[in-house]
């Protein structure tokens, strides 16, 4: 199913939730909405589902204007962040509920529910009630309810956010496969950049009620078109500093200076924003411009270390594989691989 938002906006009580946005989803593919909590991902999904009406603009599905069509007539399914199931119904009845409303025959319902339960490995639990299931099983029930009706558009609103780590990983691996051969257009909202990269497909970055970029996920990650996209699509947060280019020299706010190289060398003189991902800031021994900063926070994940350090007026983040002997409160040497950085103009548009 093709889904298109044409110049939609959404305001509630004078407060703008979605600024004018146009978006044509990749039909039959995985479309990821990536953005922080409150950026507008859920509102965008509700506009697609018909749960909210756009204040201005239109919504099209398969070329048809569906702006005024009720949710149940749009052929969509929606999986919420919280495990939403009917509490008094068995798992079977929960999964069957959209089919019953649609008026399918009993035999039809049984085969389709059986198939959906098999895909989501719920077959042994069909007779139980949602409250008797684990969180992962409850969410799988909700997902089964979403796939059973073969909706053309499946909206998954942070479906894994409330699951524990192991289950999240397991279900995340299964999700693309579950939807791959159903031909449905899937929209998946998440606040984690790593989840977007793992799921692949296409990604739209959402920031403060705007879609800042839309394209194949790896491309959006590697080639952010603006500062907002680079900010949304980076975890740990991307390092950003105001910079001045003058002749062949670049000087960051705070005094750090180096001679411009690559695409940056061709930029006209002026004020810019320089942004670089934390994993391009390495401890001593790496490549790039050497700096020394006082370490403020360190985080260890086992396979990698993260250090927040003071550099000029800002706090920078360095991310590096392995365990590093950084000590909080002490100055340590870092290298900034400036050739890997992004350059944005004063309006946040990517220039190099």
């Amino acid at each position, binding site marked *: 199913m093709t889904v298109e938002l044409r110049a939609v906006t959404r305001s509630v009580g004078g407060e703008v939730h979605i600024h004018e946005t146009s978006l044509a989803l990749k039909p039959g593919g995985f479309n990821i909405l990536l953005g922080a909590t409150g950026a507008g991902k859920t509102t965008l999904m509700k506009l697609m589902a018909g*749960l909210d009406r756009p204040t201005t603009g239109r919504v099209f599905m398969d070329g048809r204007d569906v702006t005024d069509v009720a*949710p*149940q007539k749009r052929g969509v399914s929606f999986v919420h962040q919280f495990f939403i199931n*009917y509490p008094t119904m068995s798992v079977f009845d929960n999964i069957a509920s959209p089919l019953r*409303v*649609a008026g399918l025959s009993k035999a039809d319902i049984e085969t389709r529910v059986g198939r959906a339960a098999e895909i989501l490995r719920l077959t042994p639990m069909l007779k139980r009630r949602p409250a008797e299931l684990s969180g992962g099983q409850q969410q799988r029930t909700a997902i089964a*309810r979403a796939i059973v009706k073969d909706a053309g558009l499946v909206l998954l609103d942070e479906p894994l956010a409330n699951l524990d780590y192991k289950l999240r990983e397991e279900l995340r691996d299964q999700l693309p496969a579950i939807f791959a051969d159903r031909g449905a257009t899937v929209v998946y909202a998440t606040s984690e950049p790593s989840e977007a990269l793992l799921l692949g497909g296409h990604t739209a970055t959402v920031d403060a009620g705007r879609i800042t970029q839309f394209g194949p996920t790896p491309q959006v990650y590697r080639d952010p078109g603006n500062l907002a996209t680079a900010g949304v699509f980076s975890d740990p947060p991307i390092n950003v500093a105001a910079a001045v280019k003058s002749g062949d020299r670049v000087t960051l706010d705070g005094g750090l200076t180096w001679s411009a190289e690559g695409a940056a060398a061709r930029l006209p003189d002026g004020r810019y924003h320089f942004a670089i991902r934390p994993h391009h800031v390495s401890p001593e021994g790496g490549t790039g411009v050497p700096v020394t900063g006082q370490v403020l926070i360190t985080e260890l994940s086992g396979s990698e270390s993260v250090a927040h350090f003071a550099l000029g007026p800002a706090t920078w983040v360095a991310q590096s594989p392995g365990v590093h002997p950084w000590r909080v409160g002490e100055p340590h040497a870092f290298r900034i691989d400036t050739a890997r950085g992004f350059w944005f103009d004063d309006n946040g548009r990517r220039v190099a």
Partner: protein
Amino acid sequence: MKTENQRAWFLVAPVVLLVAFNALVPLMTVVNYSVQETFGNNQFFWSGLKWFEEILTSERFQAALGRQLFFTFTILIIQIPLGIIIALAMPRRGIWVPVCLVLMSLPLLIPWNVVGAMWNIFALPDIGLLGYFLNQVVGIDYNYTRDPVAAWITLIAMDVWHWTSLVVLLTYAGLVSIPDAYYQAAKIDGASPWAVFRYIQLPKLSRVLTIAVLLRFMDSFMIYTEVSVLTGGGPGNSTTLLSIDLVKIALGQFDLGPAAAMSLIYFLITLAVSWVFYTVMTRNEGK
């Protein structure tokens, strides 16, 4: 070094004393009266379970108990569904929410004897607004001071007016705590309003409704003030509920033994039914 001492008893003593004086001592006094025959001059004679037998087999008690059960059952049958309907109709957001909540709270804030007095005057056939309207404008012969049926209707109308708000407020609190996502899921499924009520709202309200039924059962089973002011148990004995009858025996006839036995039976019935409700409530929680 001795680490154990008895000092901790001093810390619980205030509670023990408090409970003793406000619950245990009065209750035991009643138990004391219930097994003795009382004569003037403060003379008491042991009478065993005589009073209990007499009360339980007396037609007067059985009739009062019957009226009491009928009253409680009727007001529950009316107030619980009506409370749910009103709560469902109330706005969930906007400026009307506080207005509705205040309006709903008003009957609950009026002293019970005032409620009785209000309805007593309101329903008087010659001067009361309701009574006069029914008799003179609608043309129904309505006189609750003379006609038992009219007295019952007035009594039930008064209790519904006074207490439905409690059910409304409890149900409303339960309703607003249901996450929007449930309603969205129902919308996506295309579920009917009835299905939303049956499969989302009612299950999510089950606990708060159990509490509402329990509270309304206890309160209505022990009702005294409003009835006493409105009808005083009349006309005849037609609205003499258990508590009214109890006061007649205890203070009117000063039969301390039977009154004490009746109090205990009354208390045990209330306790038993409340216990059943409590068991049902905790069993539902286990699920």
